[in-house]
């Protein structure tokens, strides 16, 4: 029985830890499918975490914090678009600029407004999102298997966890089953053909970037107003890059990207679980090394040992209208 409850708690943490990665990977799919590289997921996630925490604190309502985070992230996406779509600047440089700017700005402003440590004030329970217990979760707990799955694994998560997994089929449907999604994919594959068909390439890329901003805002709000009750320095800790790697590994496809995100989440959950545990033959793995496991896994996945990743063909290139 202890083994079963171990599995249940590991699955539970996997779902929780993967949540920001899932939002970020879905955000990345929109940008990159439209032909715009988005390494700035990391910076935007951090910005959302900061703005959501500050907004929830000042207005006493996490939903207002979330809304402000969405506005902030969409603005950053628009900045990225302004630099790389309108002014045809280098997309990677634009992303690197946004990431460094946000690492600096969030911590500098947190320190200026709330004191030297660069932390935002701890949110009270009504200023943040709380775990949701699904209906009948307590009543069903005693039933074998079903109780374990329903009450211990599926119930008791933050709202963002449910939204993240809900976003996957929606993103799939929008990108692959609607005419809007077809156009997004087309501007990422062959922008001049789309232009010839009378569709504005620039507008499509801006629209895709706007959706990207909304999705990534949820990832940041999850970090600072749900799992944690405040913002702290560099709290995104590379998750934006992990999500990007998951997206590439998932071949820019929501379903496979989700699986890669869950794999990252599982490794991280396992990593936390294995800290300080004595393993047979190996002994205790030093904590610093075990923490590096998700990053090593990212490199291995990117190396594409499971097949070469093929990006949307117009990715990274600014569209120049012919006259």
């Amino acid at each position, binding site marked *: 029985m202890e083994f079963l409850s171990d599995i249940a708690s590991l699955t539970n943490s996997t779902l929780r830890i993967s949540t920001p990665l899932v939002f970020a990977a879905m955000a990345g799919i929109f940008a990159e499918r439209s032909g715009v590289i988005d390494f700035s997921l990391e910076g935007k996630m951090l910005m959302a975490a900061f703005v959501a925490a500050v907004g929830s604190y000042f207005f006493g309502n996490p939903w207002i914090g979330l809304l402000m985070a969405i506005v902030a992230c969409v603005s950053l996406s628009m*900045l990225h678009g302004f*630099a790389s779509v309108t002014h045809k600047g280098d997309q990677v440089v634009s992303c690197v*600029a946004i990431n460094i700017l946000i690492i600096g700005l969030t911590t*500098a402003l947190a320190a*200026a407004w709330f004191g030297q440590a*660069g932390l935002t004030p701890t949110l009270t329970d009504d200023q943040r999102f709380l775990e949701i217990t699904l209906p009948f979760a307590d009543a069903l707990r005693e039933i074998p298997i079903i109780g374990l799955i329903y009450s211990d694994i599926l119930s008791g998560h933050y709202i963002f966890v449910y939204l993240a997994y809900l976003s996957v089929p929606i993103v799939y449907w929008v990108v692959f089953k609607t005419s809007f999604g077809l156009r997004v994919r087309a501007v990422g594959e062959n922008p001049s053909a789309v232009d010839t068909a009378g569709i504005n390439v620039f507008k499509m890329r801006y629209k895709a970037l706007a959706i990207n901003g909304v999705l990534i805002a949820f990832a940041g709000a999850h970090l600072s107003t749900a799992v944690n009750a405040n913002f702290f320095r560099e709290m995104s800790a590379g998750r934006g890059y992990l999500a990007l790697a998951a997206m590439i590994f998932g071949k820019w496809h929501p379903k496979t990207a989700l699986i890669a995100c869950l794999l990252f989440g599982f490794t991280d959950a396992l990593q936390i679980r294995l800290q300080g545990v004595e393993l047979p033959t190996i002994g205790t793995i*030093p904590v610093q090394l075990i923490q590096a496991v998700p990053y090593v896994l*990212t*490199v291995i996945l*990117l190396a594409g040992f499971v097949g070469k990743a093929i990006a949307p063909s117009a990715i990274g290139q600014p569209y120049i209208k012919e006259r």
Partner: protein
Amino acid sequence: MGNVVDKSKVPWWVSNLIVPLVNLSLALLVSALFIFIAGENPAKAIKLIIYGSFGYIEGFAYTLYYTTNFIFTGLAFAVAFHCRLFNIGGEGQAYIGGLGVFLVAINVSFLPVPIIWLLSIAGAFVFGAAWAFIPAYLQAKRGSHVVITTIMFNFIASSLMVYLLVDVIRDMDQMGPHTVALPKEMWLPSFKDFAALFGIKIRYSPLNLSFLLAIAASFFVWFLVWKTKWGYEMRAVGHNMQAAIYAGISPYKNIILAMLISGGLAGLLSINEILGVHHKIVSGFPAGYGFTGIAVALMGRNHPIGIFPAAFLFGILYQGGSEVTFDMPNITRYMFVAVQGVIILFSGALENLFRPQIESFFVNRLNREVDA
């Protein structure tokens, strides 16, 4: 389009001097706004920056010490960029380079000191290059984007070094995560020793002989990139990979070569930090210098002649910035990280924001003069 300008008619000083200066001014204007939002007076902050970096001899020496670091990391980013590679792993490469310096120095301590220095420089270069090798190989062979892999290698380097500093090479008599100090005769002569020759007394200065190494590295990069076949091939791959392949140039070889040299240059940062300043490996010594190198290189238009003034400007911002954080409680050093981001934005991603207008303005003026 009234903005289209014949590129050949634009004087070099407009595209290489006026446009970058306009972009820099815009970046500084936005930065002033940030300082205002943080609740401090931007004008007073500028005064403090100038005083801190130029106002007294120790301050100026600090400025040049930071400049040294930024020359190394700026050159590192620039070399890879000429091959269209974004090596943002300078931070990790410098960290591992430090391991190289330390391991070499303690193992060859029986040799004469100048030889120890030369071998340590080689150690820094080789270890830094080695840390860039896997991302380079994966980019060249598997197309794994070097931005993600080098960032991951920064995280991995940090974990690895903390592990080594805590469990393996720590000075076991001390609490902190750092190694034992290198013997005093191995330390690079500092500006304090130099000033003492002229009878000037300085309390302490981190500025050391590495500054000259940075100048030498600048010449090395200029020569390599513009005067050798290797550099030509690297630039050809960066400029147009398909054309380079038709010309018989191997992108694979050049991607790896550019990344190795880039990683090696980033590794040299540890000569300044370890042989020059700390004299031991301390946890986290690259302290963001690797990232600043990106801004330095982009501002300096990836040319050693541009990188030197850009590195100096960041030296001023760092040293003057620490004066600001000392006097203004609302400003932390992170404010200057944000300033770097803004500078990368305006002199990198948005470099074409006003370029057409500025160029056509000058071309029209010059034409009018010719006509008259």
